């Protein structure tokens, strides 16, 4: 078979499998992320359908996937919203950070990832999946509930925390000297603060200038600018993901609505490739060995996350049913846990990080929505 034919067949095969998995996830009523990861396992070394020629495409596609995931996350928020919710939810946010980061970090220490490598596992267990949770709120008709603003503001806090944590982890991942690491962390944080404050004042005006009437021009402009900024950020050791996140925050108002509609399909495609890529990097035979760790970690961080949600809802006077809903809503971990684990692998954290993160996300991304559905099915009159 010619090289070209084989390449097209493999890429087509991957995308087609993604389509089947997405369909299955819809039918099951769960997030497609765990299924994509399983798909990656099946394609990988020692899997049932090993890939040969499409390595480079998957590699590049996965990088673009991370950039787009973070860009679209930034689009969800305006600088103003971030600043405001930082003020109102700082306390719940820090409780959440402490309660769900610590167990992962300690587990990392026990497994032997070392004080720096363990940071990555802490990040994996800390961050809830805004994508999965937002979809859940919508699907279950919870948007009008009184506890929903609390759930959303905790998610905003986590995402903002990620903008701070990612460059730190990214700098650690790229290694280098202590002063070099501190320098890039400082550069990253400065960039985060400047962009968020400029975007909260002038975001809409700037976006309006950059946008034209043509969807084609807009798509190419936004996609191009995002990749360039991500590239520059990566070069400055700030992490491409954070660069993309900041561009997303900078775009606001009506242009943001249009960018969302234009780039969502691209994001779905490349994020799918990213999950496959992550699954590919895992040897399925390593999974049984970490199963016990994964289940234990899931139980502990499930409990701490649920506790945080319950407490945060109670604090503002939500009744018991609302507290239970907010406890289950935050359980799901997903895309960003995998992004953090991916950085950890680049950093050369011990090989078990990948299968643990994959297994953990498999469990939490499926169990979270199922539990939420059980405690608060769509309420009708």
């Amino acid at each position, binding site marked *: 078979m010619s090289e070209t034919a084989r390449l097209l067949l493999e890429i087509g095969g991957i995308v087609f499998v993604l389509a089947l998995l997405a369909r299955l996830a819809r039918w099951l009523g769960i997030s497609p992320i765990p299924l994509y990861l399983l798909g990656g396992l099946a394609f990988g070394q020692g899997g049932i359908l090993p890939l040969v020629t499409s390595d480079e495409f998957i590699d590049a596609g996965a990088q673009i996937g991370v950039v787009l995931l973070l860009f679209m996350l930034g689009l969800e928020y305006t600088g103003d919203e971030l600043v405001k919710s930082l003020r109102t939810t700082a306390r719940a946010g820090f409780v959440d950070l402490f309660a769900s980061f610590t167990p992962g970090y300690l587990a990392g220490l026990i497994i032997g990832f070392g004080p720096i490598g363990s940071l990555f596992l802490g990040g994996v267990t800390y961050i809830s999946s805004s994508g999965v949770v937002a979809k859940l709120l919508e699907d279950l008709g919870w948007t009008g509930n*009184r506890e929903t603003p609390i759930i959303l503001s905790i998610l905003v806090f986590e995402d903002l925390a990620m903008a701070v944590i990612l460059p730190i982890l990214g700098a650690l991942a790229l290694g280098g000297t202590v002063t070099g690491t501190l320098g890039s962390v400082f550069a990253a944080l400065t960039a985060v603060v400047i962009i968020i404050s400029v975007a909260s004042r002038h975001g809409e005006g700037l976006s309006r200038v950059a946008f034209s009437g043509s969807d084609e021009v807009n798509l190419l402009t936004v996609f191009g600018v995002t990749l360039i900024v991500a590239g520059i950020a990566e070069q400055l050791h700030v992490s491409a993901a954070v660069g993309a996140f900041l561009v997303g925050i900078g775009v606001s108002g009506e242009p943001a609505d249009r960018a969302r509609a234009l780039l969502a399909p691209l994001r779905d495609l490349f994020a799918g490739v990213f999950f496959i890529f992550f699954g590919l990097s895992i040897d399925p035979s390593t999974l049984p060995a970490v199963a016990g760790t994964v289940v234990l970690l899931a139980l502990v961080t499930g409990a701490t996350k649920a506790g945080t949600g319950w407490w945060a809802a109670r604090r503002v006077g939500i009744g018991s049913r609302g507290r239970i809903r907010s406890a289950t809503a935050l359980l799901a971990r997903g895309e960003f846990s995998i992004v953090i684990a991916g950085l950890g692998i680049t950093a050369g954290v011990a090989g078990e990080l990948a299968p643990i993160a994959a297994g953990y996300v498999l469990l939490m991304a499926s169990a979270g929505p199922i539990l939420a559905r059980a405690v608060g099915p769509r309420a009708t009159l």
Partner: protein
Amino acid sequence: MSRIEETKLPGVGVRFDFITRQGERVGVVHHRGGRREIFICPPDDPDTARLVLDLDDDDVHTLADVLGVSPVIEEISQLQQVEGLAMDWLPIKPNSPYAGRTIGDARIRTLTGVSVVAVIRGEDPFPAPGPEFELKADDITVVVGTAHGIDAVKSILADG
């Protein structure tokens, strides 16, 4: 009018809700992009929204028409997005010096920079009234300007 509570839902949109006379919490979630959801919470569980209606842009206008609500409100809520711009509903009390006189007589814009963007008389809205528009007792003027200017208008309408 009942007190409307506005809550930002980051990443989703804005929620408005109020308590009806029957004690139910009724609300509308404005999704970004124009979709709106109307929900009701039963009096015994104000936390749980029961989704009633899921409306697109067209449906919203149809429903507003059917309810007989003035379209003025929507235009004003768009105006409110401008920073520093305040909006208020000022009634013309029966003892106001301008009950029975025109808007031009009150020299509102000249003195305060505030504009009267609409007058609501009973159920009927009169959008964009000119200076020759005659105010009557129990009219409600809808004014837009700075918060400071609106305070000045309040005292003009009350005391002349």
